[in-house]
């Protein structure tokens, strides 16, 4: 046996220090969202829920939250459908230029959100399209399409091919094969693509900020809160957003990735 303690103790200290570093800002955020005072910094003056009350009675914030959910659901659904169909085309059909299309579908991943956003802003302005939530949906589909495509494409393995061929031999039309065979067999990948897209859309700020004006998403609304400096209301919103993101991650972990692992 090796002298275990020599490696175990420094390793444990390192891991604990790393976790402390990783969790420090989150813990400070959550603790001071309950601050009974005007400043979300030490000393902690006692527990109060008034900032949460403020958040839930703030109609701008609540509207932005609903907008964010809508933009997230619509853009994630669009990205997933488009990504799945494209993945099916490139995995199952002989397409000339397949390499080019694959490259194009992944290309937005290599461009920063800021540049995608500025490109859309300039194009929309030049064509006279007004700033709106629809523009955010358009941008978020561009951002999420590569991920949805990549996830579906990597999971369109050989094991569904024979089921699809059998259906075709039995007289199913192309759309029937897709809807009745491929989609049900691909369900875990489709769900993963949808939840990941929703999570990224939910958190996306820069594109949403550039292409909206009056109706905004939650991150854009939080950005305008940040201008007022340190404020326990921002802590409370942040904690709520954190809780929602955690719930999404747990749902993904329990239902999507577990099922995929079993399949």
């Amino acid at each position: 046996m090796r002298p275990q303690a020599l490696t175990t103790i420094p390793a444990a200290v390192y891991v604990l220090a790393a976790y402390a570093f990783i969790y420090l800002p989150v813990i400070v955020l959550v603790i001071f969202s309950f601050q009974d005072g005007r400043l979300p910094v030490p000393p902690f003056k006692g527990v109060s829920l008034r900032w949460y009350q403020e958040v839930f009675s703030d109609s701008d914030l609540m509207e932005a939250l609903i907008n964010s959910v809508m933009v997230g659901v619509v853009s994630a659904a669009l990205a997933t459908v488009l990504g799945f169909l494209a993945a099916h085309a490139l995995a199952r059909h002989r397409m000339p230029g397949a390499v080019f299309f694959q490259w194009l579908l992944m290309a937005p991943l290599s461009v920063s959100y800021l540049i995608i956003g500025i490109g859309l802003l300039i194009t929309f302005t030049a064509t006279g399209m007004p700033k709106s939530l629809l523009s955010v949906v358009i941008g978020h589909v561009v951002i999420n399409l590569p991920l949805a495509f990549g996830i579906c494409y990597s999971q369109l393995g050989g094991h569904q091919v024979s089921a699809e061929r059998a259906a075709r031999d039995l007289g199913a039309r192309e759309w029937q094969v897709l809807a009745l065979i491929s989609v049900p067999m691909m369900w875990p990948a489709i769900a993963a693509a949808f939840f990941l897209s929703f999570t990224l859309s939910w958190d996306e700020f820069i594109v949403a900020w550039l292409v909206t004006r009056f109706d905004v998403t939650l991150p854009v609304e939080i950005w305008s809160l940040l201008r007022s400096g340190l404020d326990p209301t921002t802590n409370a919103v942040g904690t709520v957003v954190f809780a929602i993101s955690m719930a999404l991650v747990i749902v993904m972990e329990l239902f999507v990735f577990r099922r995929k692992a079993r399949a």
Partner: protein
Amino acid sequence: MNRRGLAGWFLLAPAFLWLAAFFVVPFAVMALYSVWRREGTQLVREASLANYEAFLSKSYFLDALFNSLEITAVTVVLSVLFAYPLAYILAFLVPRRWQRLGLVLAILPFWTSYLVRSYSWLLVLSENGVISQTLVTLGLLSETMSFANSNGATILGFVHFFTMLLALTIYANLVQISPNYRRAAEDLGASRLQSFIHVVLPLSLPGVMIGAFITFVLAIGDYITPQILGGNRELVMPQAILLQVQRRADFPMASAMSLVLMLVVSAVFLASARWLKMDRV
């Protein structure tokens, strides 16, 4: 063309058209705008390289680019140095059944809102913040001071975020290295350190390089962290670009700067391409 071939095009068309309209066209528009220029409030639709010349001749723009490169380089190096030991410990020293939990815990805050995470660091670093007050209480500082609004604060915010990302990519790479290699090295008399330096480290470099490259791309294109934590004293490229868009409404200059930033990222990609062997991760 047979029926199935046609079906393929129908399936591909929506995604292709979407990206053509909202990704390729905006790029073409940006490229076009970048050779136009704005004079006063007028858009001058004449091809010239005036914006690029301005970029290369004014220290205001070049400083932003070099500041971006410096912050990003420091971020990449520090994040790898912090994340590697964490990933190594999780992969090799933590019992197998606890590894997944350990990893999930290490990257959980990765999923919190990016904006809110930067704001949270402000709570820690600002003048009345946790660090300043703790240091005063301990007697290490005579009066409170702010650690925010500096390049250091930006780097800290970045390192926090990317340590989590890199711990994930490096861990994924480490667990794929067959334990037989290490066993073989140790059977042949290598110490643990030697087997790490000569066996594990070289085999894990692809994961490190991929993670480092993703970190580079995301950090150099980020506006949020430098704006919230770094303040406005020393701008990075995304801040300088957005100033052109928002304060001056100079779309041509902003387009030219965006393309320069993309060119820099592409150059770094090409320079590191031979280490970025995607298939080995």
